[in-house]
């Protein structure tokens, strides 16, 4: 008994000595090596994301982390970022703010990530920014996946960088398009009966569009029976042009019901619920989608003639086990590519503050698949601000009218809607940023 304790003691002593020796031997080296920011080592940069992987909000979004990791792995295999390999820690928040806060705490305090990238959801990001106190801790939350305009408020969310154009911007642009192209037609609107929908209504109002019939639906309640009721109302009002500003399942229900009821209208789909692959999985017949219009800030994921799409599809085949290439995968890869550029711009010894400064000074010049400019600056956290309007062809690919992309841009306030010729930076060679 005693023997074993003594034995242990001598072991401990030996271990202590060894550790001391090790520490001493590494001390001089450490004195010359640079001090690294949290989440950064000589060979790695650690990032984190919270997103629903399970639960009713998961379908679609659950494809994002794998696609982001696929792009990062592609970059890692081609030299990484200034020699460092990027890793992405993925946490499932089930789309609940309580879990989003708890999991972000894990990312920040346990996994000690350098930055959070692509976190999803309006309420979740609000709770996280405030409760985890990203601002005071100086932790960047890059390219968050929500269209709530409030995140651009730099005073309130100093380290949060929204990327997607706001829902208000989208509705204003759609409204302008309707006024330009469908003047005098009877207009209908299907919208979600919460902030998502009220942002849309605010945007349409700002654009001066009045709908002859508006059909609200409660989030999560959409079913075949509700689709029939919506279409019944649109039909009764004689709506000729119908905007669906809702999630995919609502868009699917509306389109399926209109097919079942032989109701013909010019459909205009919002970007949130306008992914052709998802709609197909929801059982929407191709015939009803053909000829429908939609708004998007990215090229259509099915458009293999686009240089970005082609390159991303290629990476997807090799690094993402050929997952179905839909809007979620596209947004994920695009976000990952922007992240790599931001990390490169932050320099050879990236810090959190340096990352944000680089994003604000150089973010506007980053290559991305979107036709919209990125407006990050020292005074603004607004990301994309523009949409183009296209038409779905018979294979579900959305293409611009007349084959030429026309970009509409505006702000989330009272600003006018402008038409600009779209120009975006060319895809860097092999899809590897060289900024």
């Amino acid at each position, binding site marked *: 008994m005693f023997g074993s304790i003594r034995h242990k003691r001598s072991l401990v002593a030996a271990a202590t000595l060894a550790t001391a020796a090790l520490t001493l031997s590494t001390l001089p080296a450490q004195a010359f090596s640079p001090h690294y920011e949290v989440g950064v080592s000589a060979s790695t940069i650690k990032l984190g994301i919270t997103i629903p*992987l399970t639960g009713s909000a998961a379908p679609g979004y659950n494809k994002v982390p794998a696609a982001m990791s696929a792009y990062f792995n592609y970059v890692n295999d081609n030299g990484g970022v200034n020699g460092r390999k990027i890793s992405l820690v993925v946490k499932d928040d089930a789309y609940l703010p309580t879990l989003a*806060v708890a999991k972000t705490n894990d990312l920040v*305090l*346990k996994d000690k990530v350098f930055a959070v990238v692509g976190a999803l959801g309006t*309420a979740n990001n609000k*709770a996280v920014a405030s409760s985890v106190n990203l601002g005071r801790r100086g932790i960047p939350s890059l390219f968050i996946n929500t269209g709530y305009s409030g995140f651009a408020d730099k005073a309130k969310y100093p380290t949060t960088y929204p990327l997607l154009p706001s829902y208000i911007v989208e509705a204003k642009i759609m409204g302008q398009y309707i006024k330009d192209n469908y003047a005098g037609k009877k207009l209908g609107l299907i919208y979600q009966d919460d*902030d998502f929908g009220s942002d849309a209504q605010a945007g349409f109002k700002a654009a001066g569009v009045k709908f002859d019939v508006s059909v609200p639906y409660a*989030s*999560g309640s959409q079913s075949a029976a509700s689709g029939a009721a919506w279409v019944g109302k649109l039909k009764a009002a004689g709506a000729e042009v119908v905007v669906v500003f809702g999630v995919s399942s609502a868009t699917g229900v509306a389109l399926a019901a209109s097919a079942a009821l032989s109701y013909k209208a010019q459909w205009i789909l919002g970007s949130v619920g306008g992914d052709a692959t998802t709609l197909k999985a929801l059982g929407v017949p191709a015939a009803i989608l053909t000829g429908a219009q939609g708004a998007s800030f990215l090229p259509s994921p099915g458009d293999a003639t686009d240089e970005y799409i082609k390159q991303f599809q290629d990476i997807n085949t090799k690094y993402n086990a050929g997952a179905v290439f839909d809007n979620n995968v596209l947004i994920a890869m695009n976000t990952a590519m922007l992240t790599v550029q931001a990390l490169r711009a932050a320099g050879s010894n990236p810090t959190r503050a340096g990352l944000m400064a680089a994003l604000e000074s150089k973010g506007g010049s980053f290559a991305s698949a979107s036709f919209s400019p990125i407006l990050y600056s020292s005074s603004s956290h607004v990301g994309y601000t523009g949409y183009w309007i296209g038409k779905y062809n018979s294979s579900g690919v959305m293409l611009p009218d007349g084959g030429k992309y026309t970009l509409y841009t505006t702000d989330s306030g009272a600003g006018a809607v402008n038409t600009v010729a779209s120009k975006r930076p060319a895809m860097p060679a092999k899809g590897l940023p060289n900024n």
Partner: protein
Amino acid sequence: MHKSRSIRLLVFIVIALAAFFLSNVVDELRVFQGASLSVYIVAIASIVLLTGYSGQISLGHGALMAIGGYSAVLAHNHWKVSIPISFAIAIVSTAFFGSILGWAAARLKGPYLAGTTLALAVGLPSLANQFSVLGGEQGLAFDVGAPPKSLGSDFTQYKWYFWICALAALIIVWITQNILTSRYGRQWRAMRSAPISASLSGIHIGRSKVLAFTISSGIAGLAGAMLVMTLNLVTPSAFPLSLSFAIVTGAVLAGVTNLGGGVIGALVLVAIPDIADLLAGKMGGAEKISANLPGFITSLILIVTVLLLPNGPKLSKLVSHKTK
């Protein structure tokens, strides 16, 4: 009786001191989990009082927590009241709502009561979207402010939440404990185990049940206010059905009839996701496996625990005997 009460008070003060000492030595992640733990302890206390004592079932206490959360935030944001006052308002307004609900609930039995409260948990948060004053899906910000300067510059926000939550939890558990050992607590127990003889001995069953529901609701309202404080936000999605289920689960794991066990139930609720994540991380595997493994493990632990310890851990039994 009086002596045991003063001993109990001493125990509470010791726990309080230990908690505050702990908050200074553990890391920040644990401090935040300590705040979550306090929220669960209070929520579980509301179920212990309702189910363990008055024998009524609720699968909808998440909805009552929502009422408490919204009340606290509205009061804090509109009337600029202090945190303790906003918590008190949460308790009172939820208790008021609970008294109406309790009046209805007293007429219902077993599965019907479960069904009604379940409906409430599903329906009520979605109703919040109908009123713009409640801020819709994005919710309303709830900023309790930074900790007072006098606590020092390295006193973190999370420690501040923990102190507030732990203190609120201690106070409410102390009060609840006293209610449960009072005349009312004894009436409820009599009513639950032998309703007919309780009624014969002069206990007004209906009124007694409504009272239990009212008090339980008030406690749940406080838990809701504490929850939204740790989130800095009140939103319908903070009160999903899974929250209602979680606190019932916590109460059952605690052995439903005693408050002391509530700490264990709350610990399990906070710890299970961590354990599941850890195990899932060790096992790894394809993405669809790793995404679902934590949920799988959590469910498995719940089932096994309830089958093995249907009436809570033995340790809690000791505590409950003392209060009988």
